[in-house]
C-alpha cells in the first residue's frame, strides 16, 4: 500500500519508512516561521524553556509583516521584541521594514521554503508552501517556541482528501482563487478539518505558481492541516531560480490511500464571490452582480503576487476607480512592488485612483491601512470574511479574485470583469 506525498514527507522527517493516518509522530523541521503578532508570545515561551540558543539560526524565519510599518507604540514594542531576538540569536531569515514582505509571498520568493520541506509557522496561512510540494502547517506560538528550541514538532499524521481538477480550459478570468473558493463552498469551512488537501489533475498542472500558492494558502479556510501540490516542471522552474540549499521532490504513489476523492471539471467553475461572514458562503459572480461596495482591497498573502498585480493593472489601464470607492492595493513583497513598478503597473494603478501601499498584512485582518466603518462593505482578494475581520463588527467583507476586484472598483459595484474590459 503506497503513501501520499504528505505521508512521505512526514515519514522522512520522522526518520521512519512509513506512517499511517492517525499516528502521532515526532518530526524534524526544515523551517520554523513566526511574525510580529505571534513571535512575541513565542519568544516569551521560548525564554521559559531556559534554552540559550535556537536549534538552528539558518532554519528560523521571523517576518514582521502584520502591524508594520508600526501602526502605534504597542506594535512598535512587539516588533522590537522580535528584532532584538533575531539579532541576539543571529536569525538568518529576518527582514525589517523596507526589506520585509508579506510572509507567505516572501518565503517562497526568497527560496527559504522548498519542495519536500516540513515547515511549521505561527500563522495559519503557512499552508501556502504546499504549492511547492512541501508539507507546511500553521501552529500557535507555543508550538513555534518549542520548534525554535528543539527543531522538532509532534504531528498527528492526517488523512488526505484528493481534489482532482479535470480539463485545462477555464472560464474567462477564473484562477486559483476561484478554484479554492469553489472547493470551500462545496465542502464547508470544516470540510477538511485535520486533513491534508492534495490538489491534482490537469487543471492544476495548467496553473502558474502564483495561482497554486493562492490555492494552498486557503486550505486552512476549509479547516485543512495542509494544502499540497506535487512538484512538476512549473514548480521546479520556480524553485531552481531561488533555492540556495538541497531539496527533495516527493510524489504520491499510484496506490496511495485517500480518505475521499473529489472530482471537478475546470470548465464548470465560474468566478466566485464569498459572501459574509464565512469563506464557504460562495456564489457565482453573476449572483452577486450589482452589489454596491465602499472599498476594494487587492493584495495580501492570498493574492498579492505579480500575476495578481498584472491582471489588476490590465483592467485598470486607462480607466478610473469609481468615485465612491477607495481602492487599496498591497503588493506582497518589495521585489514584487519593484517589478510592478518597472513594468509600469504601479503608475497605471495610481493614475486610475488607487492607493498603493508598501507590503503589509494591515487591512486583511483589520489591523491598519484600510479599516471599515459601521455598515461599510468591502470586496477583497484576501482570505477571510469573518465578522469584524476588516474593521467594524457591523461591516462586511466579500472575497474574490483580483480581476473581479479591479473591475468592481471601476464600477462601484460587483461586476464580471468582461463588463469593464470587453465593453470598455
Amino acid at each position, binding site marked *: 500500500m503506497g503513501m501520499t506525498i504528505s505521508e512521505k514527507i512526514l515519514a522522512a522527517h520522522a526518520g521512519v519508512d512509513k506512517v499511517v493516518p492517525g499516528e502521532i509522530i515526532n518530526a524534524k523541521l526544515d523551517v520554523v516561521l513566526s511574525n510580529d503578532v505571534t513571535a512575541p508570545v513565542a519568544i516569551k515561551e521560548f525564554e521559559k*524553556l531556559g534554552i540559550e540558543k535556537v536549534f538552528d539560526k539558518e532554519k528560523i524565519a521571523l517576518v514582521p509583516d502584520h502591524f508594520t510599518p508600526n501602526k502605534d507604540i504597542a506594535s512598535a514594542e512587539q516588533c522590537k521584541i522580535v528584532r532584538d531576538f533575531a539579532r541576539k540569536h543571529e536569525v538568518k531569515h529576518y527582514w525589517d521594514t523596507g526589506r520585509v514582505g508579506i510572509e507567505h509571498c516572501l518565503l517562497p520568493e526568497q527560496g527559504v521554503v522548498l519542495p519536500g520541506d516540513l515547515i511549521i509557522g505561527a500563522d495559519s496561512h503557512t499552508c501556502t508552501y504546499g504549492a511547492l510540494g512541501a508539507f507546511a502547517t500553521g501552529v500557535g506560538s*507555543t508550538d513555534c517556541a518549542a520548534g525554535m*528550541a528543539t527543531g522538532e514538532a509532534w504531528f498527528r499524521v492526517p488523512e488526505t482528501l484528493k481534489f482532482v481538477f479535470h480539463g485545462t480550459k477555464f472560464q474567462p478570468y477564473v484562477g486559483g482563487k476561484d478554484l479554492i473558493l469553489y472547493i470551500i463552498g462545496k465542502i464547508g469551512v470544516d470540510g477538511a478539518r485535520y486533513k491534508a488537501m492534495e490538489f491534482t489533475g490537469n487543471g492544476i498542472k495548467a496553473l502558474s505558481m502564483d495561482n497554486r500558492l493562492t490555492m494552498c494558502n486557503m486550505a486552512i479556510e476549509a479547516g485543512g492541516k495542509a494544502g499540497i501540490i506535487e512538484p512538476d516542471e512549473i514548480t521546479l522552474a520556480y524553485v531552481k531560480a531561488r533555492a540556495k540549499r538541497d531539496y527533495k521532490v516527493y510524489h504520491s504513489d499510484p496506490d496511495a490511500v485517500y480518505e475521499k476523492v473529489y472530482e471537478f471539471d475546470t470548465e464548470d467553475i465560474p468566478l466566485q464571490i464569498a459572501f459574509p461572514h464565512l469563506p464557504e458562503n460562495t456564489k457565482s459572480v453573476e449572483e452577486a452582480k450589482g452589489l454596491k461596495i465602499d472599498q476594494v482591497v487587492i493584495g495580501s498573502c492570498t493574492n498579492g503576487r505579480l500575476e495578481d498585480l498584472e491582471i489588476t493593472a490590465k483592467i485598470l489601464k486607462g480607466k478610473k476607480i469609481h468615485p465612491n470607492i477607495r481602492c487599496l492595493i498591497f503588493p506582497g513583497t518589495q521585489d514584487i512592488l519593484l517589478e510592478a513598478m518597472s513594468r509600469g503597473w504601479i503608475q497605471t494603478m495610481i493614475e486610475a485612483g488607487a492607493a498603493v501601499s508598501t507590503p503589509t498584512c494591515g487591512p486583511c485582518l483589520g489591523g491598519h491601512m484600510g479599516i471599515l466603518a459601521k455598515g461599510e462593505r468591502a470586496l477583497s482578494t484576501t482570505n477571510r470574511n469573518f*465578522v469584524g475581520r476588516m474593521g467594524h463588527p457591523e461591516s462586511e467583507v466579500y472575497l474574490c479574485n483580483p480581476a473581479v476586484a479591479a473591475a468592481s472598483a471601476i464600477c462601484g459595484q460587483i461586476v464580471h470583469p468582461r463588463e469593464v474590459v470587453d465593453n470598455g
Partner: protein
Amino acid sequence: MGKAWKFGHDIDTDVIIPARYLNRFEPEHLAAHCMEDADASFAANVQPGDMMIGGKNFGCGSSREHAPLAIKAAGVKAIIAESYARIFYRNALNIGMPILECPEAVRGIEAGDEVEVDLQSSTIQNISKGTSFQATPFPPFMQELIKAGGLVPYVKEKRKNA
C-alpha cells in the same frame, strides 16, 4: 461549578479576540476584549469557573494563540464544543486550557445552566438539568501533554530526562 456561556457554530478566532487588539499580548488585555464582537457583555460578566459552550469547528481561522489565552485569562474553566478547528485545539492543549469535545453535552446545555466538569474523567454535568455527559477522551500522547501542564513544561521535562 460555573455558568454556561453558549455560542454557535464556527466561532472564529477573530471573534474570540479581534486582530485590532493584537498589538499587545498581555493576558489581561486579551481577556478584556474576549468575545467582544459576538457578545459585548461577555468580558465584563464572565466569572472565574464559568464554561464556554460552542458548536462545530470552534476556534476556526487564525493561528493566534491569543484566542485560547484570552479565554483562559477571562477565567473560563473549560470549553465544551461539538468539534474544534485544528490549530485552536493544539494551542489550547499547549497552553493548558482545558477543552472537551462532546456534541451531546452541547445540545444538552442551555445558556445560563450551571455546569461542572471533571477533567480527569472528561465528564460533564449539567447541574441545572440533572444530566451528565461523557466527552471524547484524549489520545494517550495528549493526556501526557495535559498531565505535564502544556507543551513548555512537557519539553522541559523531556530535555531534563534526555
